[in-house]
């Protein structure tokens, strides 16, 4: 190593100023590239450090919040509402049947005629998460019945969210209502 270093120094001393200037220029370009790369890396590392600090602050804030007894009680109360407002079943099929029955019940309660409720496909969700059941209601339309249906939906324990409403009252044709709704579905773990 020492010999190689000595040899390099000897060669450098033997080189002309022009050759040494060329070598120094190459070194300068390499140093420039290294400085730019280091700057870029430092910039990225700085961003990562800031993101990490933000994540730590978020985690600390969440920890403080979730440690609060009052917050835990509030969460429990809100979660109970979610369970009460959702259809809780072990399979989608049963849940859909239950949702169709509930919506038909609401339409009947509102006094709508010629009611037809169809279930759409279940939106795919991960197990344990809240899924959405999509249903479509077709019925004869009149304003009073429609308003009663909305009131019944509002008063219902099941959370039913209207997604789309279509009303046709063309003269000489029967007035029809088509309403697409969503209902939350919680998959219950099957009993052993």
């Amino acid at each position, binding site marked *: 190593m020492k010999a190689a270093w000595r040899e390099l120094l000897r060669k450098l001393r033997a080189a002309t*100023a022009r050759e040494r200037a060329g070598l*120094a220029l190459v070194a300068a370009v390499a140093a420039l590239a290294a400085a730019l790369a280091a700057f870029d890396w*430092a910039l990225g590392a700085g961003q*990562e450090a800031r993101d*990490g600090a933000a994540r730590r602050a978020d985690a600390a804030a969440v920890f403080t919040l979730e440690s609060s007894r009052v917050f835990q009680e509030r969460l429990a109360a809100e*979660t109970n509402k979610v369970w009460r407002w959702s259809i809780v079943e072990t399979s989608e099929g049963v849940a859909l049947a239950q949702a169709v029955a509930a919506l038909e019940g609401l339409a009947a309660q509102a006094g709508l005629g010629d009611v037809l409720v169809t279930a759409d496909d279940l939106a795919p969700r991960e197990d344990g998460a*809240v899924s959405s059941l999509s249903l479509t209601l077709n019925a004869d339309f009149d304003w009073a019945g429609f308003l009663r249906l909305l009131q019944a939906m509002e008063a219902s324990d099941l959370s039913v969210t209207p997604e789309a409403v279509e009303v046709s009252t063309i003269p000489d044709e029967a007035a029809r209502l088509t309403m697409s709704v969503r209902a939350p579905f919680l998959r219950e773990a099957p009993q052993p």
Partner: protein
Amino acid sequence: MGGINLKQPKASQSMRVLLESGTFAGADGDAQPVGAILLSRALCRFSLYRASPELSRAHIARAVRTHAEANAPFVETGTLLLRSPHGAEMWYWDKAQASAGVSPKALTTLAPESLFREAGEGWRILACVEGFEAQYWQEGGLVASTWRRHAFTREQWIAFALGVEAAAHEPPDTPPAPTNTRLLTHALWRGREIKPPLTWRDAETAAASFALCLSGLAAFFVGQGLHFEEDARASARETAAIEESIASNPALRRARERAELLLAFNSANAGADALTAAADALSVFKQFGVEAESWRADQSGFHAILSASISDIPLRDVVAALEATPLLCGVEPNLSSREGALELSAALETAGATCAADRGRAP
């Protein structure tokens, strides 16, 4: 001694003047020179290079360098070339004589003491640290200068005056009284210096300095990056410790699960309020006495077919009223395929989002 008894000026505290004898003259008389070293006028020779006014600065520089090299009066000549209104001032000194007792580093900054005197105009005689210097100045530039060990005699003065070609000022018949001025501490003449041309050695120095500076910069950035990485690792460790303490605490774990369930429920029920948008639109229609034959409201927008022709209703006002509702935007009326009917379409504005129908329109 010329018959004149004049007190010789002293150099300033920070300057040392290298005398003809090889010793230094300074305020404290130190033998070892420190600070700037001036050359006694006795060691220097002056010459003016008269350049044609048409020559460019680069041409003058090249010409004066060649001229100074060709007319070097010593075997080993020290040279200082300065730009002047008349061309260039050339100062020479014997490098071999000056280098005795002067460090190699100080040798590169040597300058004649005459350059540290106030500029003049016309004819004058200066009392130097040793001897006397006769000068002729014209248009702010030194044209001629000569040195004598003793005060100038009339003959010496006449010889000097006759040596100056085309002098604008008439020389006095007798030598003027020598002026005793202090040495200036600043070196304004450095701005006029004609430096040697750049060499490959200069290029090598510049490139090596550049490489060195950039390497330092790169090292600084690497240091910063390492520091930031350590910060990020420390943050990740602390975050993991918090998550671990949440995971190991049943009450906190339950709270997290419940919070996630609530978030999932909210996201499952999220969406634009189509029903409220429809109620708003129908209320506007009622306000203008218009009846909707059919209407549809969903997440993307509101669409209605009105049983009215374009001449029956104040369409512009209806559109403006619909636009004024909180959820509807981008209202567009269209003629229906059916006679006596009009179609109206509007987009739904979700909370915090701009109207999708307005995007891409000219302002």
